[in-house]
């Protein structure tokens, strides 16, 4: 997030696109409620009618994958009405002319045709966003998990800069991160091309800096992102994989493809607190302890680095992940000896400018928001205050592109995926929590009443959903929250794995993020398939299905 969670309360307008905030980031949704009650305007754009839509001044359900068109349409109207922040654009940004030229083509009528949103609604959205500053834009995976993910994000930035909303309190472009420490994992260099603090591996200076600090020469060519690792496994180029605290068997696209790739590995090492679907395929499983059994820090979505503290001793013969890593490193001939996580933190902070001013003592219970470059720095509630990190904010003229896959005669439905409120990601943590599991014990597929009527589907009927990659079953939940022609599947349920259906090839060309939010599928009632032998239904192999059942 460019801005802070608490600042949302003081926004003049909140624009939520591609985030089901009350279900996935409930304590951020709280700030949205508070802002709304204090008088802020609320705009919600989501292919589903989400809980926050009920409270919005304008709520639209745009067609899956049409985000760029919708945002360009808003910008078209903002410029046409002269609502843009001319001084801000002049002083703080560049390449505005190209943006203006591109969005000129996105007339309300054209955008309405692409997105399915009425001209009136687009006009309202544009006016409300542009005339109630500061406007905070909130988005989540509904923006990023597309072949045009980077385009979508850049379009959000264009809109925010156009109205002078970046670098002001209560404004900003605010991606809501889905995992507790996904921000930290990125900050710490858990990416193929950067060390901690986004220092490039192929930059000679930073390469030398880390090589010197670590006492080893370091590879200077960026490595493979996870979405490229899978093809590399299939080609036999990637032979060994070390997976720490992840469950790609459920979270990665195209499960059949991935299973095949994992089988090709010579060695799979998995480190986790549960025997996840992925751990079940491992050669060696390292048993890590939980977050309540160790010390360390997490960095939340507003860049706030906070300490976690040890509450209980590690279970049985489990170890904190940091101790496992130290042991493995030492066994590989590189001694790692740290007295405690604080010693690791201090080593990291010394190498990472944005964390350089942080110590455990300074973090306290409130934490500090990076950048925090020195010991006197109070942390940074919002970014780009006086100027952009890169100097001038750059507008990117972006045209609308269709998703990789659109419904056709054979696969007539749009499918999108996401989370529901009581479960989390692949369900490894929530489905074994009795109070959470009771809220939703099985997977389901949301279908609009009109479609249900046409297909003669009743609530609870088991449906077979098939894409070009595979097929799976889930009971129908008939609800008007999805648009006719669109289905929604939650991703938490291993026995109804959404990633059987989604594509591993439809990736954003830059971010390599898979297009989980748009696939084309067909449905049929499962009962019609009764009598079919299990192998042909494309279900996971029986051994694995048993194991998955055992983990519930």
């Amino acid at each position, binding site marked *: 997030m460019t801005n802070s969670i608490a600042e949302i309360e003081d926004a003049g307008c909140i624009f939520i696109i591609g985030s089901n905030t009350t*279900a996935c980031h*409930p304590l951020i949704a709280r700030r949205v409620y508070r802002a*709304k009650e204090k008088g802020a305007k609320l705009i919600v754009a989501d292919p589903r009618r989400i*809980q926050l839509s009920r409270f919005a001044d304008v709520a639209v359900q745009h067609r899956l994958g049409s985000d760029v068109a919708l945002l360009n349409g808003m910008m078209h109207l903002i410029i046409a009405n002269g609502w843009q922040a001319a001084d801000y654009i002049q002083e703080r940004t560049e390449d505005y002319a190209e943006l203006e030229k591109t969005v000129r083509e996105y007339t309300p009528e054209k955008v309405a045709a692409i997105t399915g949103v009425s001209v009136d609604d687009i006009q309202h959205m544009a006016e409300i966003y542009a005339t109630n500053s500061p406007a905070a834009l909130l988005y989540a995976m509904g923006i990023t998990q597309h072949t045009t993910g980077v385009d979508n994000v850049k379009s959000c930035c264009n809109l925010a800069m156009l109205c002078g909303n970046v670098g002001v309190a209560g404004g900003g472009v605010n991606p809501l991160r889905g995992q507790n420490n996904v921000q930290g994992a990125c900050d710490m260099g858990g990416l193929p091309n950067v060390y901690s603090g986004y220092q490039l591996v192929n930059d000679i200076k930073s390469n030398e800096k880390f090589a010197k600090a670590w006492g080893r020469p370091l590879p200077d060519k960026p490595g493979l992102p996870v979405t490229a690792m899978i093809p590399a496994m299939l080609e036999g180029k990637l032979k060994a994989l070390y997976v720490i605290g992840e469950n790609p068997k459920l979270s990665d696209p195209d499960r059949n493809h991935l299973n095949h790739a994992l089988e090709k590995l010579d060695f799979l090492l998995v480190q986790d607190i549960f025997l996840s679907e992925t751990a079940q395929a491992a050669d060696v499983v390292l048993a890590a302890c939980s977050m309540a059994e160790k010390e360390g820090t997490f960095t939340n979505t507003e860049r706030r680095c906070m300490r976690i503290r040890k509450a209980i001793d590690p279970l049985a013969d489990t170890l904190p992940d940091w101790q496992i890593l130290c042991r493995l490193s030492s066994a590989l001939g590189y001694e790692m000896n740290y007295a405690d996580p604080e010693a690791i933190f201090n080593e990291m902070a010394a190498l990472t400018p944005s964390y350089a001013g942080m110590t455990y003592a300074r973090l*306290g*219970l409130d934490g500090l928001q990076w950048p925090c470059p020195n010991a006197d720095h109070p942390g940074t509630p919002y970014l780009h205050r006086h100027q952009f990190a890169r100097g001038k904010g750059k507008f990117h003229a972006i045209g609308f592109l269709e998703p990789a896959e659109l419904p056709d005669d054979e696969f007539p439905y749009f499918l999108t995926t996401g989370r529901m409120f009581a479960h989390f990601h692949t369900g490894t943590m929530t489905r074994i929590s009795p109070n959470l599991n009771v809220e*939703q014990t099985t997977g389901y597929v949301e279908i609009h009443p009109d479609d249900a009527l046409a297909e003669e589907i009743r609530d609870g009927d088991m449906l077979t959903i098939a894409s070009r990659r595979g097929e799976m079953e889930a009971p129908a939940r008939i609800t008007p*929250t999805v648009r006719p022609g669109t289905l929604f599947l939650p991703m938490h349920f291993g026995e109804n794995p959404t990633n059987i259906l989604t594509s591993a090839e439809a990736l954003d060309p830059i971010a390599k993020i898979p297009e989980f939010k748009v696939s084309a599928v067909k449905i049929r009632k499962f009962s019609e398939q009764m009598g079919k032998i299990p192998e042909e239904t494309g279900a996971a192999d029986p051994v694995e299905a048993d194991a998955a059942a055992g983990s519930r």
Partner: protein
Amino acid sequence: MKARVRRWLEEGTVDVFIGYRQVDGHPLPYCFTRENLDALDGLINSPARYALEKIATHLASRQPDLKIGILSLDTNRRALNVLGIWNQINPENITTVDADDAASGVATPDDMRTFEPVVPGPYKQQVGIDNAMSPADAEAFDQSERFSRWMYEFEKCIKCYGCRNICPVCFCRECSLEHRDLIGTGPLPPDVPIFHLVRAVHMAGRCIDCGLCEEACPADISLRLLYRKVNQILDNVFEYQTGSDPGQPPFSLLGNQVTLEPKPLDADK
């Protein structure tokens, strides 16, 4: 006062004393024991309230004869009365220290983070139920407006169960809010208004108007007002003032004629 708690711990009047201490500028609940008497120097009063008596019930359920001291406000004492009536604690094992008694000598540090209660915004006042309203004010709206205002509040619910979880007098092992035949599961918001009304009904004779539910509600729903109304009805109909008297048995709700004594078989003859 700290000296008094120290003496209690030393002499065995209490085995554990539940109060607050300051950690990195935040007031956090803390259990003082005789194994670490020096920690008592850090005993403070907290402007941010936690359900200390709920911690006490958790301890008592594990060790029923444990003698527990609690730094108490008026609300804590009312909760303890209810918990005693419902056999969740044994009042004989509980000793309280008056936190709002200036003479107690337990200070509230100035440099500490505090908790700011909800200030209802203008939009909420326009369409919802202002948290500061009295039940009479809320009833002054005509029926359809009252309904739409309450529904506005309930539809914000994210089903965190925080109102129940934080509640010092919610102790049932099986909760009606999780009864599938009563309240559906799956979507957000939960079934409204049934979810909130089921809880409200169950607050009759239980709610001691401490307001912790409202402070825990991510959606700022005016829960305190709702439960206050329920207990007002209870007072009007049964003259039952929840939590006011540790000796008041719950069954007096049904009148003095009802007892748990077995009826003699020849009673009707």
